[in-house]
């Protein structure tokens, strides 16, 4: 009974602890110039290209849909209620601070995180990771470090792309439907005015932290797969780890702000 409770607790706690330890490990290695060998730099560039270019289309489409929904709806309904001056505040709070990090995190997880998870699971379960260790190549240094950092930067980049597409497309549709009469410059100027100092900190912090944890979680889930594990069992586990990382980070940073 006691053993069963202990086993259950360890199973639940081990991954967050590993994530925290590896998260610190990535930061520690990242600040050492010797870690940035050409193999690591190459992997970083490759992952950046794959995550940003690969996620651009999905992000743009999602942003346009979210923009139409959020910007048009806010402008229309707040205008109807005579509270049009609150539009910028609502858009900053709901769209940029809450919805954007969540959607970008989900796109990153589905588009690139699951790919990383699959690649590293195969690497681990087929003995390829051990072969790399035998050659003196640490998979943590060559894959986990560059991919985690690339995911963090890609998340921020995709977030900015998301914001630009959502606001501009939302404005264009609203303008065509006649629910906004300001110029685009004035509309954006109001939005910038509604951004508080903490928004300039919390929005990038959310994007960077979510990207970092999605990348790290995908890598760790893959590299900790046991030889008996199959992709069919590892992928749902990786997806749950990713979703939890996104949600918990988002909530914690919202509460902290």
């Amino acid at each position, binding site marked *: 009974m006691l053993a069963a409770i202990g086993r259950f607790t360890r199973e639940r706690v081990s991954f967050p602890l590993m994530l925290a330890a590896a998260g610190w490990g990535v930061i520690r290695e990242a600040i050492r110039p010797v870690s940035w060998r050409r193999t690591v730099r190459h992997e970083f560039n490759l992952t950046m290209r794959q995550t940003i270019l690969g996620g651009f289309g999905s992000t743009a489409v999602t942003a346009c849909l979210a923009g139409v929904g959020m910007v048009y709806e806010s402008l229309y309904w707040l205008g109807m209620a005579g509270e049009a001056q609150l539009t910028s505040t609502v858009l900053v709070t709901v769209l940029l601070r809450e919805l954007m990090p969540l959607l970008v995190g989900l796109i990153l997880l589905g588009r690139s995180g699951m790919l990383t998870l699959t690649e590293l699971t195969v690497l681990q379960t087929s003995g390829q990771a051990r072969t790399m260790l*035998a050659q003196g190549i*640490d998979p943590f240094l060559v894959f986990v470090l560059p991919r985690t950092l690339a995911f963090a930067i890609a998340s921020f980049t995709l977030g900015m792309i998301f914001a630009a597409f959502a606001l501009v497309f939302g404005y264009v549709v609203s303008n065509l439907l006649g629910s906004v009469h300001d110029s685009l410059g004035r509309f954006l100027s109001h939005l910038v005015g509604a951004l508080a100092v903490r928004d300039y900190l919390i929005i990038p912090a959310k994007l960077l932290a979510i990207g970092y944890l999605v990348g790290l979680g995908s890598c760790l889930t893959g590299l900790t797969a046991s030889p008996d594990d199959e992709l069919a069992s590892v992928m749902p586990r990786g997806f749950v780890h990713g979703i939890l990382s996104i949600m918990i980070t988002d909530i914690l940073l919202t509460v902290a702000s």
Partner: protein
Amino acid sequence: MVAEAAAQPDEAAHPAERDRATAASPVAPVLELEDAFPDFEASSLPNALLRLRLCPGECVLIETHDTERATALADLCSGMIPLIRGTVRFMGYDWSELDQERSLALRGRIGRIHARGAWASLLRTHVNVMLPMLHHTREPVASIAQSALELAQQVGLPGLPLVRPDRLGESDLVRAACVRAFLGEPQLLLIEGAAIGAESAELMPVLLDLLLRALDRGAAAVCFARDLPLWRRQHFPMSQRLILLEDGLKSMRDL
């Protein structure tokens, strides 16, 4: 070869270790298993003391039909299996006294033909082949590629295979594995014979040629043979012939 600062074992090692390594005689062993008793839980190796001493220019043939056990012994030589007692030294350095970074750097001096999981499926074959050199050294990519290309032509490949490893035939993969193992003039060669089956028998004269040249420049080699006649036929310059049994490594002459 210009090594990465942190990847250079001589600079990375503790001064005491370096003194011990340099104070040794000119024929200091490249690899030495001194009453090494591996952790039984961590490997499939026999629960016995293992002794082996391999000097520059020496080649040992170890017969074992158990591929897993051969891989485990190769791992032990590479400092990847913890010991309960005894020591395993490579180039004068005790693996157990080195931290992870130095161990990894030192493993860059080992060329190995792996029996299992030899190829990272997410990388193309030519990247797989050059990866250890790209990671451990600062030698220009063009120079590494040129050396790899020359080796590839020596083993009978028309060039460096650019496709992913799963697109290559078994025979070409073995040839590519030879290129990777001998690239960068490693100090120790670990050749898991299970990777070289009867279907790759025509590769043996080429392997012998590469091995002889490596031994001539002072490297040492450990060959794990499953198909012994295949190895005997080529008159490999074996300084010792051993068999891996339940009670350790035994000389064939003693049996």
